[in-house]
């Protein structure tokens, strides 16, 4: 699509009346064409003006709480982690929750490289989700998950650290318990190897795996199956560096 063709469609693109095929073609063009992107931004701002000119209508009572709850649930923030009972639901929940993987930390303090980092992290995220889906389909037989419990929790950096991650546990009376941890945005290879520890309320620790290398996005994943030990109560997940310092930490809420 040439700039001339794009420019001809940009007014309708800004107004939002183009069909999906044209929108997608324009979106791809705008990814690399700064000139058209600038024009699209200007026209888009002008079009949005129309919406703001409308006489305001009263917003339904309680909508704010519903919006907040929905975003927080999607973001998988503490206190709203979801507990699901089927493999399909687990997968959906995990996929949704993965969308928040480490983003805040990746973005923090990196305004100058924000876009690059965000794109890298997004690609890494998609790859992580695909790997996760593969693992999940392998470890959870589809006919034996009805009574299984899968729990998700977000890992966040300590102090001024970077990165983020996610932990998933299967705690089931029928299937061997396992934990899977995926991290991203860790940019200091000198802290390798990283070890994953699961901790219960009594301070008892279980090894959850070891990370010996990070990919280009500072990401890695570790999976550990527990043949003799159930994971019930081991809700704290710590990712610790070679010096024993906690890099990422989070809580997996196993309560219903």
């Amino acid at each position: 699509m040439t700039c001339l063709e794009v420019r001809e469609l940009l007014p309708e693109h800004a107004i939002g009346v183009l069909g999906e095929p044209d929108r997608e073609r324009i979106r791809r063009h705008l990814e690399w064409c700064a000139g058209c992107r600038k024009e699209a931004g200007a026209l888009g701002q002008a079009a949005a003006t129309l919406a703001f000119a409308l006489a305001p209508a009263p917003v339904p009572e309680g909508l704010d709480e519903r919006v907040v709850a929905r975003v927080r649930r999607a973001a998988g923030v503490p206190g709203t982690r979801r507990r699901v009972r089927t493999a399909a639901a687990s997968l959906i929940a995990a996929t949704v929750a993965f969308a928040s993987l480490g983003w805040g930390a990746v973005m923090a303090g990196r305004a100058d490289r924000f876009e690059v980092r965000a794109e890298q992290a997004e690609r890494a995220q998609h790859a992580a989700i695909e790997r996760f889906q593969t693992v999940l389909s392998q470890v959870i037989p589809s006919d034996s998950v009805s009574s299984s419990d899968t729990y998700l929790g977000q890992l966040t950096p300590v102090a001024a650290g970077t990165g983020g991650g996610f932990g998933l546990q299967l705690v089931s009376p029928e299937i061997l318990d396992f934990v899977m941890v995926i991290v991203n945005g860790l940019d200091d290879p000198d802290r390798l190897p990283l070890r994953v520890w699961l901790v219960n309320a009594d301070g008892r620790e279980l090894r959850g795996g070891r990370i010996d290398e990070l990919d280009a996005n500072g990401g890695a994943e570790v999976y550990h199956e527990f043949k003799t030990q159930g994971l019930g109560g081991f809700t704290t997940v710590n990712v610790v560096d070679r010096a024993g310092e906690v890099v990422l930490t989070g809580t997996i809420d196993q309560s219903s």
Partner: protein
Amino acid sequence: MSTRPDGPLLAREEQQLVEGLLAGNEDAVRALYARFARPIFTLGLRLLGSAEAAEELTQDVFLAAWRKAARFDPARGRLSTWLMTIAHNLAVDRLRRETGVTRPHLVLVEEVPETEWVDEEEPLIERDAAIRALESLSDAEKRLLARAYFGGLTAREIAESDGIPLGTVKTRLRTALIKVRRANQDKERP
């Protein structure tokens, strides 16, 4: 997380809010809601025609904003524009998806009735500026933009309806948007 209660947001503040949204930070979500839920809901009401659909749209917009938050770049445009673009696209997509739903009722900007509701707890920061910007347009230009933006009509549909060349409609749309854009430049963020 705190932002000034009124006045345009600084680019830094917009980025902070979006980062907070991405992390599911409650304060950030509430701050965004306080500023933008009302115009989003209003737009949904105008385009979709019912409070129920407008509420669903409002929730969908904030969720979509969370999903797209990593792509938001304050250097490329304002947060308000970004959110309203998401809202408009979602609403138009919904109208196209749903069978049996007629085109949104045509509402010309200057004909939008004022509601009796006047209890504005949060200032509608953008509205005065928007109205001023639209004053730069002729009545014909306002009507043209409204038919496209609120009526969901493409340039081709307008051209066929009015019996004028497609190129003419496209040119007029672009001219009108550029006029609004120029008027908007007077209210750029500090």
